[in-house]
Structure formats: C-alpha cells, structure tokens
C-alpha cells in the first residue's frame, strides 16, 4: 500500500491509498482523479496518463522504458520528470509519492 498525492494543474490535491501491484494510473482512475484520462486502460497504447513525478521521487520510480519514452515524445508539455503513470507499479517503496498532472492529456 502506498499513499500517493496527485496534484491537478489547478493545484487541487487528491491523496489516495493505492494497493500494491496496481499502477499509479489505475489508482487515479478508480478514484476519478480528473486529469488522468488513461483511454487505453493501461496498455501503454495511448499516452493519456502522463504525469510529472516529483523530483525527490525520480530515483524510486525509475526510468521510462523505450516504448514509453517514444510515447512521451508526443505527449503535451513534456518535462524531464514526465512518465506515463500506467507504467509505474505501486509498491511500499512509493509510499508518499507525489505526482503532478499536466493541463491536458489531449
């Protein structure tokens, strides 16, 4: 279980208890956090679950894979800390994770 804080582009925060084994995307979608669309449901097929990982957490979330990196190249307003949240698996190590959401996924 990990407590994850999602911060909308407007600044609004959502704190969610995410179960291990799910992804950072799934926890957000299941709690209807606005700003993560995840159209493909986590198949790494659409790039609509883009998040900015808080710099303090980059070491814990790891690097994007090559498919993910190619997708991110076409997401909106990409930064060096951009990830697709469907590719980040929740574990105890991510307890306290903070991610920020872009203005738009489309």
């Amino acid at each position, binding site marked *: 279980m990990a407590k994850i804080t999602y911060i909308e582009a407007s600044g609004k925060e959502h704190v969610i208890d995410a179960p291990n084994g*799910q992804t950072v995307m*799934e926890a957000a*979608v*299941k709690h*209807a956090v*606005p700003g993560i669309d995840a*159209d*493909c*449901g986590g*198949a*790494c*097929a*659409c*790039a609509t679950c883009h998040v900015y990982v808080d710099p303090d957490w980059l070491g814990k979330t790891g690097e994007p894979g090559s*498919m993910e990196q*190619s*997708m991110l*190249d*076409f997401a909106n307003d990409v930064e060096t800390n951009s990830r697709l949240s469907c590719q980040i698996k929740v574990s105890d190590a991510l307890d306290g994770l903070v991610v920020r959401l872009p203005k738009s996924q*489309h």
Partner: protein
Amino acid sequence: MDEIRRVIIIGAGQAGGETAQRLRQGGFTGEITLIGEEPHAPYQRPPLSKQYLSGELPMERVLLRPPEVYTHENIAWLKSTRAVWIDRTNRRVRLEGGRELSYDALVLATGARPRKLPLAGADLAGVHVLRTAGDVDAMRAAFVPGAKLVVVGAGYIGLEVTAVARKLGLDVTVVESAVRPLARVTSPEMAGFFLDEHTSKGVRFVLGGQCALIKGVDRVRGVGLDDGQEVAADIVIAGIGVTPDVALAQHSGLTIGNGIVTDRQCRTSDPAIFAIGDCASRPMVHYDNRVERLESVHNAIEGAKIAAATILGQAPPAEETPWFWSDQYDLKLQIAGLFGGYDHTVLRGSMADRAFAMFYYKGERLIAVDAINKPAEFLGTKMLIAKGLSIAPDILADASRPMKELVAEAQKTASQKT
C-alpha cells in the same frame, strides 16, 4: 431541448459508463439511470481477449471504476436489466418486467452482439463467442496446455485469443474464409506479417476455409470443413465479427444504417436521443465527414464525451483521429486513422526487425498508419491526421531520421503557409 433533468443511458459498457461519469464530472445534478444487461459494472473490453483471458488481470482491475462509485455519485446503475421498449412520444423507457422510466435525454450505448456460427452443432458445449467477461469465464477452464483450439475468423479478436492460447500451450488452428488473415481491417502486406508471426509460433492456418458443421455429441469434437476435412477441437471460438445492437432503436423508428445513424453531436433522428459506441455511426470529421461505425475504445470514449457535453449544453471536444491497438505475443500494433480507400503504402523500417510502420496514402494525403512496436510513428501520425497534415512518402520511408523530427518539420512548414 427543454431543461434536462433526467438522463437514461441504455447499455453499461465503456461508452455508457463513461457518459454517466462525464455527466457527473461536468456538474450534472439531475437523475442518471444506467441500464446494463450484464451483472458487472462498466468495464473495459480490450483486456478480455488479452490479459483477462490469460489470467494476468482479475475482473476488479478490468472494471473501469469500483461498483460503489455509482452509489457515491448518485448514479442509478440497474445491473442485469434489459430495456425492452422506447416510447418516444412520452419519453419513456420500459424495462423487462414492465417498470417504466421517464427521460429528458436518452443515450443508446447498446453495443454489438457477436455473430454466432450459422452451423449445425454450433450449440454444442465447448463452442464459444467472445464479447463479455462471462464469455471468457465460460471458456477459461478449457484453456489447458495441449488442448486443441479452433479459432474461426482471423480478425483482431481471433488472433489475440490465438496468441494467448499459444502462450498457454494450446494447440491452435485458425480457420478463415478469406484468403488472408485480417482481410477486412488491414493491407495484404500487414496480413502477411501477422500470418508469418503466428505461423512461426506454431499456429496452423486454414485460409479460404469454409466451416460446414461442428461435430460432437454432447461436446464439440471437431470442425468439419466444406472440403470434407475435419479439424479436431476440444474448444471452438468464433471471432467472426459483431452486429450492432439496434433492435430498440429500430422498433422505435429511429433512422438505422450501418448501426444507429447520428450526426456529429451523436444525436439520432430524434433530438432527445443520442447513440454512441459500437451501435452507432457518425460522420468522421477527418475523413470528409464519411459516415463510419467504429468498434473501438477511442470511439466509445469520444461518443461519451460528445453526448455528455451536448446534454450539459457545453461545446463538445474536438474529435481525435480514430485509433486502435492490438497486442499479440510481444507485438504492439497501434493504428491511427482509417485506411479504407488507400491507393498506396509506404513501409518505414523493416518487418524482419518486428518494429516498423506501414503508412497508407490516398493520393498525396496520409490517411492511416499501422505501427508495430513503433509508438512514435503511431502518435506522430495521429497528430498529423488530426491537423490535416501529411508527410511525403519518400521522407517517411527514410527511417534514419526520427519521427519526432519529421512531424515537427511538417508542422513548421504548415504554420509558415498560414
């Protein structure tokens, strides 16, 4: 339209579920009733023929949202419930059992029904279709190593099931009446690639094969072909397409073509009734408003966004380029655009590398791409088509320059012209 206070959504698949969610997210405070024939809350269908069948994803992760969310958001979700009649004059929907509900706006998200094999023996135990979680639950016990599976129909569902079955150690034969797999949905070149891929994984294909009957006494034993051959089978799965579920709409006199006909706002011929998802067709703005019925997650979500926005009196979002994906073995196919009517193709990369893109052109216009393990080519093309831009075939054929660069160049050239 008068003030909308009561919305009824018939069909609790992804299109119906998303509509309910987006109405609430958009601030709708009236009544929402979501009527679904299945016992499950709205869920994603794509994993059914992939990770749900393989057992990698449990049902709770296939659900779009936990069932209790509907209670929290005051959405009346009627599960295992059939709507049987629409009274358009009095704006009422009748449910099986006789209960009637009134609506100000009605959304038809009735989806599609899988075609059943029109053959003797098709009712035998062990013969399945794949459309719902229940369908997968019914076939899963037979997915044991060494079992003989016959897949009838080499479309995306048939090939996805084939890939899962091979990974689980089943012996698979695919019977397809056309001369190649994926005949209706992609080019001969791509069909050849998938045929080689599956053949190399030990799948047998009977192409141009017509099934004559399903053999067996209590349970399926084999599939008889019209040339007299018999293919042994412990389990048969028909993936021969779907028929849009238009019965309710048709009985109530709505205009039907290829599915329920709607305009760009997803309105049917009755302005109080919308139709979205697999059951409906609408003009494709990126394709000269050609009317198409798309069976895809993208179309289900887009229809939900448009119908919800229109009911809320808001401007609907700009339509995306149609897109689709299929996972088979370690291949991710991503499709952007509609390839129908193409006159030539360009290959970027090499099929032997199992990472390439096939682009489709109509004259000088780039209309679609099939990308295999090439997400940049998929997303880049999706963006170009949405903006009405193309890249010349000889430039795309040069795989030494990154897609990102080519797309940026095309956008820059376009902005200089305006």
